[in-house]
């Protein structure tokens, strides 16, 4: 939790870009940002010694945070995308085997065989198991967005309940894989995988806040993201050891945390007012005292 919070504060630059684009033209562009991020998290291969050659493209695809360049991504399918589609199909098929084999090469090899492609394709994923986990995270985010766009029940709820509901919806998507989820978390925590997993979680948190109706654009923005990131991560971890039917205890835990966070916000506001009032009072009495001292 502390790691994600600290990371978020450090990497706010990329978040600003995402949110800026999203604030201006929300629904249509966010869809493209998400799909391009899905492709870019799987195509996000290179470290500096590697280069990729694209026969028909003049520029290689960079990270998902550039919303301005999305026009180049629209339009006709270029041959570059074909192998990515194939890779996506393999990953989709591999997800079904995760329960048996875990988030591992084994699952991906089995997935590839199922799709009818040589398992050698597994070698073409830059960080293999991480590619599978990242694909799953992107997939869940897409499904969450669909749920948000299609469901109206959110309008009737107050913000804290909206957040609670959204986090719950998202975590329920992980429920089928819960037995192997600790492995997925450890894969996401590898230093090599941290940038991508951090980016995905940041997008998720951003998305939930948008759906909950957030309009802030000042320092409050970071605070909100940090809080929600913390709530999400702690609930996720709580869920790992929850044996209650249908994760009832997890949802209670979640509701408590959300309530605490909103209470904390009010508490902070009140504390700020108090500090101001005290400061004002102290200030005037201090002035009087100093004045008397110097009059001597």
């Amino acid at each position: 939790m502390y790691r994600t919070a600290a990371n978020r504060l450090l990497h706010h630059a990329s978040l600003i870009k995402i949110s800026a684009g999203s604030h201006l033209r929300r629904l249509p562009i966010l869809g493209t940002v998400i799909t391009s991020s899905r492709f870019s998290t799987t195509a996000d291969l290179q470290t500096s010694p590697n280069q990729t050659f694209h026969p028909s493209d003049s520029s290689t695809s960079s990270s998902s945070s550039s919303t301005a360049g999305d026009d180049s991504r629209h339009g006709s399918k270029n041959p570059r995308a074909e192998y990515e589609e194939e890779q996506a199909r393999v990953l989709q098929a591999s997800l079904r085997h995760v329960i048996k084999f875990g988030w591992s090469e084994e699952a991906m090899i089995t997935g590839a065989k199922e799709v009818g492609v040589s398992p050698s394709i597994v070698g073409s994923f830059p960080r293999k198991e991480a590619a599978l986990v990242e694909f799953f995270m992107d997939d869940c985010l897409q499904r969450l967005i669909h749920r948000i766009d299609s469901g109206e029940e959110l309008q009737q709820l107050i913000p804290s309940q909206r957040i609670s509901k959204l986090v719950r919806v998202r975590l329920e998507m992980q429920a089928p894989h819960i037995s192997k989820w600790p492995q997925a978390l450890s894969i996401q925590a590898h230093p090599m995988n941290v940038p991508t997993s951090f980016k995905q979680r940041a997008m998720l948190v951003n998305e939930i806040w948008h759906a909950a109706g957030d309009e802030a654009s000042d320092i409050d923005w970071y605070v909100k993201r940090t809080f929600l990131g913390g709530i999400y991560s702690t609930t996720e971890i709580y869920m790992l050891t929850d044996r209650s039917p249908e994760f009832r205890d997890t949802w209670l835990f979640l509701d408590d945390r959300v309530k605490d966070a909103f209470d904390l916000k009010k508490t902070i506001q009140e504390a700020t007012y108090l500090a101001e009032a005290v400061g004002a009072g102290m200030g005037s009495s201090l002035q009087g005292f100093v004045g008397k001292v110097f009059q001597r």
Partner: protein
Amino acid sequence: MALRLLTRNLRNRISPNLCSASLLHSHATSFGFKEVREEEKSQMVGKVFSNVASNYDLMNDFMSAGLHRLWKDRLVSKLSPFPGMKHLDVAGGTGDVAFRILESINSIRRRALQDPINDDLQEETRIYVCDINQNMLNVGKNRALERGLGEDKSLVWVQGDAEALSFEDNSMDGYTIAFGIRNVTHIEKVLTEAYRVLKRGGRFLSLELSHVEIPVFKELYDLYSFSVIPRLGEVVAGDRESYQYLVESIRRFPPQEKFASMIADAGFQKVEYENLVGGVVAIHSGLKI
């Protein structure tokens, strides 16, 4: 006739770097810095490798200060072998890459994770080592015996030409060519053949000495190549000519980007390359979809 001589003279005057692979389409090809007829090239290469076969591994160790082992390890880890794989290693005469792949598949760590289904799969693994030169293959077979892999039916030694493989279409999961593509007469044919024999989802990987662009390092490398290596060849293997050929053929081989575009032209997708040691060696990879 006179015209041909004239163009040939002109071409010799132009620096070797400007000669791209497309020029090699003509009836002359390069043998190091010499221009030779195509029919002769494979004979001359054959002679080189017959001469060096017995000392090949030793010379590799000397020239690369043992680094070639790490490069081959990197190649195999990029390949990501799996049990039941059908793999073709071309120009892999002495078997270095093939042994590594086999060991990776049979490794104890993998065994620990396996269930009974995979044991059957392991039986189906086939690594074909193809080389045009029988001497190199013989050296490889002897090394296999030394390692205790003599009876292993996963290893199959085949003599053949990379430009006209005897394998069926869509039969291989992986194709590697380590330090071999520099010596072929027609690079495009080899790439087309590679594309043909690979299955859908199969990967092509080539490990090859390539071009260094980093300023100071480039000069040092050139110095090392042209002064040290032929001398080393003379002293260790008693064959200066072959090692002179080696060093020159590296310079004549297309640079990384050009080679990558040739691979893409053959039909491969997701063509990438990774420079090792600043470009002294490059691993190119492509995916067949």
